[in-house]
């Protein structure tokens, strides 16, 4: 049983489990947390999972955990690790089942005061136009050829079909089209599960929020991101739907079967992996990149539907909805650090590139990448900016608040009709077909988002730019 005594304090916000803690660790593990968040990591098995990550072949520096860390499958959620591309592994357990679950934020030209009289109609319209809920299909059923294009070209192909504007491409991580994607690496089963799901929100913790900028922390960077106090923004949080889950299922199974071939012994079956340069490793990377493209296309399609709903309710006076940025928080990427090619796994962690990075839009080269952190329902979300110091975490930060309470416990604790009333009494318009789904995502089921973001900023991993408060929430 691990206790706080097993951790070495590196700074007020960084704690280390030394390599000597367990014989099979190849590197130490580091946790970003303050005293308060640190207490919570002992409540589940996330530390043990982080130690397991530190045993994987080819890992360099540290197995890292962000302040929203909690128990996942294989990697903990909030887990980050870099592996040498030549000697190291790639693992579906380091990416997660919902490949490229991620977030995009749009900004409007309107202030809270201008939108307030229309908010109910707007939320109703968005709910009508954006399919959401368990296993819900969308309006578009992809042919085999269209599916191939979506998987290989992501956002680009969706925009060619008229679902968005060309400049949207620039404001997506990887420009919405991850290199290395090959539709042939994605099974027919996965394609069937995704066939009618493009442009759908799904269920679980996925949501769509209309928000207002509640506070600005950095005027200069906020201006670069096009944000000012009271401005209305829209946040879309979802992923690759059934398609990504099937890809993960398929490749966990493949990697189980080849573990002995590559002499990989696993401390956790969910860490099934293969050498990055092996045939199975390359195939998973291609399938994962394809699923990531599907997820970017999905968020693009949803944004298109939201833009339509916005115009229908607000007409010409609504102005335009512009994409600030779109980030993935479940993905493995090939990135270069000090001349070395690394496979960076981010599982429930957000890429946060610094100013001057060539991999972010030119507009953000002085400010750093917009880092989008969705909060819990009815509390707040944050926009931060990437910094140079985050090189120590392979330019990664948290992805949200981090769950602390089981879904069943949340349902027991949060009387769903009262929760709906509470949110509505705070002026938040709630559109959720399922009371159970609403209760599962009650704010009390999560860590304090303000605390998590504060640790990220105090540790120097990103800089707070703006806080967003919800005006309306749509949950599947």
């Amino acid at each position, binding site marked *: 049983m691990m206790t706080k005594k097993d951790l070495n304090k590196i700074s007020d916000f960084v704690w280390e489990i030394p390599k000597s803690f367990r014989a099979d660790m190849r590197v130490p593990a580091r946790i970003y947390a303050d005293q308060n968040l640190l207490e919570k990591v002992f409540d589940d098995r996330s530390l043990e999972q982080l130690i397991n990550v530190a045993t994987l072949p080819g890992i360099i520096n540290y197995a890292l955990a962000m302040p929203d860390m909690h128990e996942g499958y294989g990697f903990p959620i909030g887990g980050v690790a870099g592996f040498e591309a030549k000697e190291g592994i790639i693992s579906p357990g380091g990416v997660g089942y919902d490949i490229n679950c991620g977030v995009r934020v749009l900004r409007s030209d309107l202030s809270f005061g201008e939108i307030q009289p229309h908010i109910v109609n707007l939320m109703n319209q968005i709910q009508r136009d954006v399919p959401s809920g368990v296993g819900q299909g969308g309006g578009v059923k992809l042919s085999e050829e269209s599916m191939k294009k979506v998987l290989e070209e992501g956002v680009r192909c969706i925009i060619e079909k008229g679902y968005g504007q060309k400049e949207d491409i620039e404001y997506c991580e990887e420009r919405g089209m991850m290199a290395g994607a090959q539709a042939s690496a994605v099974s027919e089963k996965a394609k069937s599960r995704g066939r009618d799901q493009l442009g759908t929100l799904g269920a679980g913790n996925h949501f769509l929020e209309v928000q207002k900028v509640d506070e600005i922390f950095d005027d200069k960077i906020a201006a670069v991101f096009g944000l000012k106090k009271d401005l209305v923004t829209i946040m879309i949080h979802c992923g690759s739907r059934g398609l990504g889950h099937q890809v*993960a299922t398929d490749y966990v199974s493949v990697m189980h079967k080849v573990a002995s071939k590559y002499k990989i012994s696993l401390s*956790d079956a969910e860490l099934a992996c293969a050498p990055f340069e092996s045939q199975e490793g390359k195939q998973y990377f291609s399938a994962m990149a394809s699923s990531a493209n599907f997820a970017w296309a999905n968020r693009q399609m949803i944004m298109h539907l939201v833009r339509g709903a916005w115009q229908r309710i607000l007409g010409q006076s609504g102005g335009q909805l512009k994409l600030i940025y779109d980030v993935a928080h479940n993905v493995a990427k090939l990135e270069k650090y000090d001349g070395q090619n690394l496979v960076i796994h981010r599982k429930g962690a957000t890429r946060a590139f610094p100013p001057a990075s060539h991999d972010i839009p030119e507009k953000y080269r002085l400010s750093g990448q917009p880092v989008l952190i969705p909060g819990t329902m009815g509390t707040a979300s944050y926009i931060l900016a990437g910094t140079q110091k985050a090189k120590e975490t392979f330019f990664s930060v948290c992805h949200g608040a981090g769950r602390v309470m089981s879904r069943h416990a949340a349902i027991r604790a949060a009387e769903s009709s009262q929760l709906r009333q509470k949110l509505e009494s705070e002026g938040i318009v709630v559109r959720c077909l*399922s009371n159970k789904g609403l209760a599962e995502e009650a704010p009390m089921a999560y860590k304090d988002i303000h605390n998590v973001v504060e640790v990220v900023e105090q540790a120097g991993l990103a800089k707070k730019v703006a806080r967003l408060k919800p005006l309306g929430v749509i949950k599947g």
Partner: protein
Amino acid sequence: MDKSFEILDHPADLKIRAFGKTKEGLFLNMMRGMAESQQGEIENKKEIKKEIKVKSSDLASLLVDFLSEIIYLSQTNKEIYFNAGFRKFSENYLEGELFGQKVKRFNEDIKAVTYHELEIKKADDHWEATVIFDI
């Protein structure tokens, strides 16, 4: 052993423990636990049959792969399966038929079967397994 399965509490997902006098019975009861958790709204009561064949490396993987195949069939055909008949059943291979019904919708989205804390064992006079599902 009166219960065929039970739903256990889990921080983020769905955890089911199932029991069976035989391995086949255990697989069947785990499938029923999953079906109950999907909370499908039945569209019509006409019985649906689906062929199933699964090959894996060992018994634990066979259980995961069997349940994963059911999720795939369930989601793509909008069907829920309550019964199964196995023609062949070994440590790493099964073949048989699933029996179920068409659904209008599911109220719980079971998206994947995981190896996390997976346990399958023979107790005194019965088999027992625990599986965590990603929802």
